[in-house]
């Protein structure tokens, strides 16, 4: 029998557990030239801010062993323009649309949450973990008190489930995760990128104009997996696992660690079809192991 890939997450039905990660997939238009976006469980759209943002000056990318550093800095057209021109396009596909939001202040987060939940996105992903902007972003995600106040503010106005995206650039990620859960978050997503840098030794300058950037790709997968495992043990709300997933095996490890959904990001740069191959690989694994659904492996890590 064909295994059932459907997942219930924060009260929403997802047709399969494979989503694409914010910042790597734009608003879906470019990848829709390669495949029908309805094959995805969901799309976490490029990070939105209240007003349009230019982002950081280039170069914004550096390759590292099995990873990349980026310092895009939340370039986006702003939440109103997204609702007007990008959301109608995404709505043409039968997939969950998850709007990722970043604010400079708590008020900005709640204003965006109001606009987007009125526009009927399926879920909000509250970004308190972008390492590439000075104000807001990571500043909210490294302190349990501010993580809690952002979460509360968004929850107070949102008509759709609220997922908070956590940063790995903290001493104890579980402390932040618990603060978000206590503040009413419906779900958590982790991890965002790990802060890093590279230097061009010929020029004696940083490779990135922004000096530091966020590391993603297979290099960070073991860190992401460890954090997902720790957070899943600490909280009761569901977790979307991400960070360097490049094949179905990685996704399955995330399920064993306790993730309900997974998100694919950097892997799409090498292979635009990576999310579909990962979905296929998960299905084949479940079949081979005679598992009826993801419930049979989720959190079933044997540690004795």
């Amino acid at each position, binding site marked *: 029998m064909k295994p059932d890939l459907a997942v219930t997450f924060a009260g929403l039905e997802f047709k399969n557990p494979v989503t694409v990660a914010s910042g790597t997939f734009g608003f879906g238009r470019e990848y829709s030239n*390669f495949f029908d976006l309805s094959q995805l469980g969901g799309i976490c759209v490029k990070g939105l801010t209240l007003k349009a943002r230019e982002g950081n000056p*280039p170069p914004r990318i550096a390759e590292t062993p099995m990873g990349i550093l980026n310092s895009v800095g939340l370039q986006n057209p702003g939440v109103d323009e997204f609702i007007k021109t990008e959301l109608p396009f995404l709505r043409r596909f039968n997939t969950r649309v998850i709007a990722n939001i970043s604010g400079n202040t708590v008020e900005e987060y709640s204003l965006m949450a109001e606009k987007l939940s009125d526009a009927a996105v399926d879920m909000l992903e509250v970004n308190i973990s972008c390492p590439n902007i000075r104000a807001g972003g990571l500043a909210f995600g490294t302190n349990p008190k501010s993580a809690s106040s952002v979460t509360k503010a968004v929850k107070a106005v949102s008509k759709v489930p609220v997922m908070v995206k956590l940063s790995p650039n903290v001493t104890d990620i579980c402390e932040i995760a618990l603060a978000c859960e206590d503040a009413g978050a419906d779900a958590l997503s982790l991890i965002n990128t790990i802060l890093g840098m590279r230097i061009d030794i010929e020029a004696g300058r940083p490779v990135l104009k922004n000096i530091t950037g966020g590391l993603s790709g297979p290099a960070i997968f073991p860190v992401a997996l460890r954090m997902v495992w720790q957070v899943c043990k600490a909280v009761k709300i569901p977790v979307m696992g991400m960070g360097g997933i490049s094949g179905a095996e990685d996704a399955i490890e995330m399920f064993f660690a306790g993730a309900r959904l997974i998100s694919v990001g950097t892997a799409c740069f090498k292979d635009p079809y990576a999310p579909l191959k990962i979905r296929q690989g998960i299905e084949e694994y479940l079949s081979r192991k005679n598992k009826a659904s993801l419930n049979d492996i989720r959190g079933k890590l044997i540690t004795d």
Partner: protein
Amino acid sequence: MPFQRNCRVIEVNQIANGLFSLVFDCSDIAGSTKAGQFVHISCGDGLLLRRPISVCDLDGSLVRIIFQVKGSGTSWLSERKQGEVIDVLGPLGKGFALDGSRLLLVGGGIGVPPLLMAARQASEQGKKVNALLGFADADKVILLPEFASACDWVEVSTENGSLGKHGYVTDLLISRLEANQNICDLILSCGPQAMLSRVAHIAKEHHMPCQVSLEQRMGCGIGACLVCSCGIKSPGGEGKSFARVCADGPVFSSREVIWDET
């Protein structure tokens, strides 16, 4: 509409010091590539990012690219053998708009190859095409016979004077334009950033339309990840914005580019 295809390598040759020519077979890509567009090539399992390389020439279902070995990706690519398969994404980006009737191509170093396709397509359309090509040294000179066959004339400069005029290709451009302002009605240029910035300046001084093909470190190559940005003047205004070199370019009007923001 880009394709991702596994393409058979037909031949790989070193054509100058550190410069390689690779021909692969792909009818989908060959059938839809325009001058100035690029392909994004996966360079082995160990590297996460593809390498963007401009298309130099087409012949039936065959696609020719020329690249400089700069690091581990291009080194891997230079070691491919006939009959092997490479994973290619393309054609990508917005190419040259062959608007004029008298084109002057200004190429520098590894920026020379994409201009060959522009020369061929323009001359097939009955346009007059000439080329100014600059190289660092005679041992880096490439594609002269190909340009000669597609252009009315080709003039070459080298930085050390080992072949052609001693100096920069921008010196050739200035003397040509000063000798005859009507030598062209459109400049197409590709080369290092400093050269392109200079070409843009010269074109502006001579009120000449000019398109430049920019290079930037890329991620996805299809316009989704926003890492390969360059500064662009807002239409009609004083403001600026960042454009995606991979999807909005790599070819831009020289006047819209903000040269200290690219």
